[in-house]
């Protein structure tokens, strides 16, 4: 179903309580001391900008994650959920989550089944809003850039 076909109260499917909670009280918000990796994410369409910091140890385990920046409820909540999720994960597992989240947001059900997304399923509502998908994927593209140690900022375009 596209945004054109959804009805009024369904907007709460997008702004679920979990999303609003993370938007209002973002977890791991700020700079990360001793970050080993970082990347910027920029959405040139709306000007949203965030910076993601990771502390990755020699075993490729993500020991810490944090972010700073400003954006809409969807992009802030997505970044907050990201940091909550990836801490403690191996970087390969974090990339598998990246694949699953982007698959979920693009409506690709096969990718979704490979990984248990847990509370990241709250982002599924965004799928119905094509103009907002980039808000939700911004932090995830920054995660990918950070892990790959790309020098250019991640862009949603």
């Amino acid at each position, binding site marked *: 179903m596209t945004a054109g076909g959804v009805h009024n109260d369904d907007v709460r499917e*997008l702004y679920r309580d979990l999303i609003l909670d993370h938007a209002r009280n973002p977890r791991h918000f700020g700079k990360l001391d001793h970050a080993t990796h970082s990347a910027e994410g920029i959405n040139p369409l709306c000007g949203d900008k965030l910076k993601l910091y990771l502390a990755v140890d020699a075993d490729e385990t993500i020991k810490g994650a944090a972010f700073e920046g400003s954006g809409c409820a969807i992009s802030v909540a997505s970044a907050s959920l990201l940091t909550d999720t990836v801490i403690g994960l191996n970087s390969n597992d974090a990339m598998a989550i990246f694949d699953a989240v982007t698959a979920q947001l693009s409506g690709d059900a096969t990718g979704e089944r490979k990984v248990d997304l847990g509370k990241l399923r709250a982002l599924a509502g965004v799928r119905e809003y094509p*103009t907002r998908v980039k808000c939700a994927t911004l932090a995830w593209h920054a995660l990918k850039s950070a892990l790959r140690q790309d020098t250019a900022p991640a862009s949603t375009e």
Partner: protein
Amino acid sequence: MTHAQKLTDAQSVVAACRADFPALDQDVNGHRLVYLDSAASAQQPSAVIDAITRYERHDHANVHRGVHTLSHRATDAYEGARDTLRAFINAASTTEVVFTSGTTEAINLVAQSFCRPRLGPGDKVLITHLEHHANIVPWQLVCEQTGAQLVVAPINDRGELELDALYTLMDDAVRLLAISHVSNALGTINPVKAIIAEAHSRDIPVLVDGAQGVPHMKVDVRDLDCDFYAFSGHKMFGPTGTGVLYGKEALLDAMPPYQGGGDMILEVSFSGTTFNELPYKFEAGTPNISGVVGFGAAAKYLEDLGMQNVEAWEHELSKYMMQQLSAIEDIRLIGTAAHKAGVQSFLLGDIHPHDLGTILDHQGVAIRTGHHCAMPVMEFFGVPGTARASLALYNNFDDIDRLVAALDKAREIFA
């Protein structure tokens, strides 16, 4: 409508025209559409859509070329639209009305064809802090190309130009002032006539970016005495991909062509080319003929309604919108100039403009969110973007009530 009794006859004429716009007659997300994004692109009346269709179905051929009947009809339709637009802005002659793809191309034409040959190190182009990117970037480019300097006149916290500062910046080195008639992000109406007089007293030519001016007020280029006036078809109820550069004949005449190609030449040989006369010198290649036909129909539609009537109706709506929005708790109005058009930027509590835009869309209310192609304005107010409701002649009081109700709903969701 409870407001009906307050309307004068002239305002009622305009209020009744909503039915002329077929796109407004639809439900979006289960609600009647409330279109408050006309500053981005206005809807088209049937008169425009029908004129384009009639042309495409019966009269289409290339212009200024063939001797056959359809080519003749196409040329008449195209040149007829030019004369309608000439009259619409009260230009002296159709030689001063150059068709472009829009305001952006018109400004680029002046930057490259008028300014570039005249600029060098030590010269300045003067703009203001209120400008749309289309009236910033072309000047940055030409300044980079020539070593000239771009100078920006300041605004105050109501979003009005600081006129004293602007006049102080008009020094001997300024080769052109480029200024918006109406700010797209804030709605501020600049006192362009007085500014032009000041600039001319210092021998500075003036380009007015009129994209947001022509849809809302009577524009008379001879009364303004502007040297260039640029505007777009799609902001004044015509099709996208159309625009006009008005320029004083003596200036246009002295300018080299902007682009080369067919239609802009008199004679071509490999040893050289003689350029066509005005305005064709600036219209290389087959133009957007059907678009221009629709653009002309839009100007005629506005002429028939009467721009004074349009202005009076929008003034009432605008006053009501300001009054209703101001009464909302936690709202921050951005752009509160004393003299402004029906454009209102705002923020609601700590709700990000994009979230507002989505929630409003869900209730059938279309507004613009983001930086409105005016990032320096956003930076001035210290915000990444705003929500913007913009009015046009087809809006009514009920639309504004619906906007306010939709904003209440957003507050409820984010409470």
